[in-house]
């Protein structure tokens, strides 16, 4: 089959690979009908997430049709069914899954010894990601093997198109969880850093959860125009002071809720010296992350506010102002998304017409164009915000 394969820094190739096979009675093979490139794929593209290996198949936003199932499916998943595959692989049986903490499932990471050494505990297995999270072949391919498939799927009604359903795999529940983590009140200002795909979903989620005003921060006019369309007040940080404008919008008090949809790769700018410091240290492998957004959020967030972090951080971050965070009594909530916790509700909202996540798609091309689209998406060329690939 054909797949997009990681070969090293900035080197994604459209390769011919062997077909996936059923390895376990709870497995299924899914023929991929649509998949997408995620912002976190760019961290892998930049080789900033450790423990990738040449030959790894990319992709964790996938949907398609079940073409083969293992022997222990007990009717929970059948051939021919149309499914979205959440990026977190879950067993549905461990203590964490039973609590709804699906992204820290205790059983699905087949390299849990690595995760335990690095993180202290294992996290769930993830598709198309580092070997620390299991190294499972991803879904930017013609076919994908889904482990624990009886629990790791969301059935899609025929009434929804691929474009409407696909983002249940990651970015819609990720933006939603980020907003839910904020405990939004009707009087709240929610400030969202980053208007990429997750930022766009977080903006819509904050509106649906009843925020008084949502503020979107980016520097790209096309992304800010999409944020504005979703009901956000845009701040272009190349043109105005983020902190000054946020204080202005909140009568000098700062936003009650802040969401970091950037993560470890903050934009490097001469006007923000800490970003240059972080980039230099990251290049010399003295720091994993560039946490400029985190510093800015801690500074501007109203005391007793909440900081929600859906953006990916990989390892060590320097110069986090914990003194300010502690003395201001800020609450931090973060984590990979517990996709299954939110999909029933979100699927219903899509069916009811409350939200149509397909708005974010700016490019839809064949899988063979994948390597070029990684470049286009990373370089933000052609006003690219979200790429959907069709095998």
């Amino acid at each position, binding site marked *: 089959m054909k797949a997009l394969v990681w070969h090293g820094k900035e080197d994604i190739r459209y390769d011919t*690979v062997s077909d996936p096979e059923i390895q376990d009675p709870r497995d299924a093979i899914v023929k991929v009908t649509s998949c997408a490139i995620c912002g976190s794929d760019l961290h892998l593209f930049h080789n900033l997430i450790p423990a990738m290996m040449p030959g790894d198949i990319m992709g964790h936003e996938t949907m398609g049709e079940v073409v083969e199932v293992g022997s222990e499916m007990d009717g929970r998943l059948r051939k021919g069914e149309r499914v979205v595959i959440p990026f977190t692989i879950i067993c*549905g049986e461990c203590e964490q899954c039973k609590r709804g903490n699906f992204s820290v499932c205790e059983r699905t990471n087949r390299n849990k010894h690595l995760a335990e050494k690095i993180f202290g505990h294992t996290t769930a297995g993830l598709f198309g990601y580092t070997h620390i999270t299991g190294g499972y072949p991803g879904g930017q391919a013609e076919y994908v093997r889904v482990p624990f498939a009886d629990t790791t799927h969301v059935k899609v009604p025929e009434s929804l198109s691929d474009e409407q359903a696909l983002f249940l795999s990651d970015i819609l529940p990720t933006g939603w969880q980020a907003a839910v983590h904020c405990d939004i009140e009707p009087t709240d200002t929610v400030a969202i850093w980053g208007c990429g795909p997750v930022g766009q979903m977080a903006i819509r989620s904050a509106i649906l959860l009843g925020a008084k005003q949502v503020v979107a921060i980016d520097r790209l006019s096309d992304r800010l125009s999409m944020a504005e369309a979703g009901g956000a007040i845009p701040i272009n940080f190349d043109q105005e002071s983020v902190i000054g404008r946020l204080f202005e919008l909140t009568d000098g008090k700062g936003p009650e809720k802040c969401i970091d949809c950037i993560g470890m790769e903050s934009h490097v700018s001469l006007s923000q010296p800490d970003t240059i410091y972080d980039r230099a240290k990251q290049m010399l492998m003295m720091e994993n992350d560039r946490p400029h957004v985190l510093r800015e959020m801690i500074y501007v967030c109203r005391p007793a506010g909440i900081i929600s972090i859906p953006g990916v951080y990989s390892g060590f971050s320097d110069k986090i102002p914990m003194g300010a965070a502690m003395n201001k009594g800020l609450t931090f909530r973060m984590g990979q998304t517990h996709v299954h916790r939110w999909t029933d509700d979100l699927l219903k909202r899509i069916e009811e017409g409350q939200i149509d996540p397909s708005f974010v798609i700016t490019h839809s091309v064949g899988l063979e164009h994948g*390597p070029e689209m990684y470049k286009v998406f990373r370089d933000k060329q052609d006003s690219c915000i979200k790429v959907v690939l069709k095998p």
Partner: protein
Amino acid sequence: MAMTPISNLVRHEGDPHVIRSGPSSLGMPDQLARMLGWFSIGLGLAQIFMPGRLTRWLGTEGSENLVRAYGAREIGAGILCLSIDKELGLWSRAAGDGVDLATLLPAMSEGNPQRGNAGMAAALVTGIMLLDVLAAQSVRERHKRGNGRRRDYRDRSGFPKGVEAARLAASSSRRIAPSVTATHSPVG
């Protein structure tokens, strides 16, 4: 493809493995930057560990510490060329080439018996500087944000019934308020 047979050794049995490699996201300018980056690191190491041989060949004995410093500069530029900030690395290489040329000029004077070698080195540096400039320009061209159309997405709200309807529904129902810590029923 070179590394995949090795990584396949530790790949989980049954997982797909690469049979034939296809087109890459790396373009020619990226590959040229990579090549120049490794060249820079190699040259830098040679300058740091064998400065005497270089100064004897150029007839500039006594400037070993300067050569070592240039070696460190070469390694820094090489690391930049291999990073995602490769354009910066290539321009810093081109600037370094200029410094090298300025340093070589006095060595080409009549009094230096090795001035022929110094002249050869200067010609080489000039050629490489042109290559560095060409590579930097082609990397910029390939990766500049201006490529493609600039679009406006003000018509993409994502709310089929409009933003105001979404706000209204949120304020009137407040049905939502999903809990952050709610115990979830088992899936299946």
